[in-house]
């Protein structure tokens, strides 16, 4: 059964650090995603979300972020690797919702200044996504040595990432379509 609504796939920029190179990666991925027919996207910068840090979990749910997660069919999460893990504030944000994520695909874009492209952070991140009810892809995009991948203005210097991102997005869109159909049509019982 065809669904006429476009897939809604926001890109979450998962760091608030000043000078973050992940912003270039997130902008690039969002621009590539926006080129796809039947997909709408937007860049959500967690630095702009009004979440307090004197509480946690669904008690601090931001209505606007919750609505965006509810409307999403899948997520792309851009996460730098900090001390072999993902940013704590990214988890703080994600923990503020639950029902909004269930049975939705999540693609991870890892970013690092070193050569491994955030892979160690992603290894720690996948179990969190699973517990939130998201369905992680088996494709990632890994921006290792990110200072050589983008210039200071955010211009992509390594065109190989266009093809890598294309593979990632094909899988993401397949998962988003399939899971949307399942959420809307296949009952649990």
């Amino acid at each position: 059964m065809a669904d006429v609504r476009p897939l809604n796939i926001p890109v979450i920029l998962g760091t608030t650090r000043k000078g973050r190179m992940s912003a270039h990666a997130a902008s690039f991925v969002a621009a590539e995603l926006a080129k796809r027919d039947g997909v709408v996207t937007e860049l959500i910068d967690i630095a702009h979300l009004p979440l307090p840090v004197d509480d946690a979990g669904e008690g601090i749910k931001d209505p606007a972020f919750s609505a965006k997660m509810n409307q999403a069919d899948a997520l792309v999460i851009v996460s730098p690797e900090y001390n072999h893990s993902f940013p704590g504030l990214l988890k703080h944000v994600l923990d503020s919702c639950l029902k909004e994520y269930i049975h939705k695909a999540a693609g991870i874009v890892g970013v690092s200044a070193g050569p491994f492209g955030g892979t160690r952070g992603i290894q720690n991140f996948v179990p969190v996504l699973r517990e939130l009810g998201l369905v992680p892809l088996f494709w990632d995009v890994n921006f290792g040595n990110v200072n050589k991948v983008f210039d200071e203005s955010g211009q992509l210097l390594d065109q190989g990432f266009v093809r890598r991102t294309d593979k990632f997005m094909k899988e993401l869109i397949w998962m988003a379509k399939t899971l949307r159909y399942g959420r809307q049509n296949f009952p649990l019982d």
Partner: protein
Amino acid sequence: MSKDTPKMICPKCRVEMNHHAEKLVDPVNPKEAAQVDPALGGLIEEMHCCPGCGTTESRRTR
């Protein structure tokens, strides 16, 4: 979900939603702790999705 349990209705489209998932969640306050299913060790949250607009809603069950 029991067959006697009423279907959730989409607040936007007013159509029956599809119950597609259940998640075991931990209690976060004494009131919820008193409702924990001892066999499961937590509370069940049902997830429902609108077949029309994709809106997601949830509710707790025992």
